[in-house]
């Protein structure tokens, strides 16, 4: 009881720190700390597969991706001008959170847990269609990232075109 409470309090503090900090790199490090605490919580909940994935992907890969994008765009100070008024954002987020909480309270407990079912069996046998779709999604995402990142080099040299046109008209 003390262990999940402490981990969740730390995770909540990391999440609030990631939202309220004014430096992007600090926000990324707070997100990595949140992932580490969540993976510890998953491990405590007897869910070692998702704990390892959360630690390697959430605290590793996503942190590297975010740090790489910050290094490409620059670690700028973030202004505090909100997108929505804070009271409206608080009201909307509280409504959505209460709706989710109400939905989760309706989950009935099962008296006889199915201990013989493994994650790989569920993943590869019961949810094989999801795995296929997920694989297709991975390829689509890789193609999209490649297209977006290489498209920039070909789509922005349009500033030279007006000068070329102007020189052509002057020649004519």
């Amino acid at each position, binding site marked *: 009881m003390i262990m999940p409470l402490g981990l*969740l309090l730390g995770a909540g503090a990391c999440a609030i720190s990631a939202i309220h900090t004014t430096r992007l790199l600090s926000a990324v490090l707070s997100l990595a700390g949140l992932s580490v605490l969540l993976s510890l919580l998953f491990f405590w909940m*007897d869910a070692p597969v*998702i704990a390892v994935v959360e630690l390697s992907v959430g605290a590793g890969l996503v942190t590297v991706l975010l740090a790489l994008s910050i290094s490409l765009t620059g670690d700028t100070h973030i202004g505090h001008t909100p997108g929505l008024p804070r009271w409206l954002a608080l009201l909307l987020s509280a409504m959505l959170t209460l709706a989710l909480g109400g939905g989760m309270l309706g989950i009935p407990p099962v008296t006889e847990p199915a201990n013989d079912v493994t994650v790989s069996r569920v993943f590869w046998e019961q949810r094989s269609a999801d795995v296929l779709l997920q694989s297709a999604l991975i390829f689509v995402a890789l193609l999209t990232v490649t297209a977006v990142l290489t498209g920039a080099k070909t789509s922005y040299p349009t500033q030279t075109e007006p000068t070329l046109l102007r020189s052509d008209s002057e020649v004519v």
Partner: protein
Amino acid sequence: MTTAEVLLIGVLLLFGVGVYGLLILRHYIQQIIALQILVKGASLALVTAGYVRGEPALGQSLALTVVAVDTFVAAVALALAIQLQRSQEVSP
């Protein structure tokens, strides 16, 4: 207070912070970070549901899908954010 209720409060905390961040933040990368927090709340909800129902394998496999898809969503969103930043530097 039971363990399931503590976990539920944690789910709601992460979900609420993520939604609030998505609504008030304006920087692209910070919005992606808020989306990551929201999705971490969702994956914790799935694992918690499996823990409460006594089906941890199903909850873990669903959370695994959520983490994988969310990673690629973050990759595409970061690529778009980099492109937007570059175009804003060039266009004015």
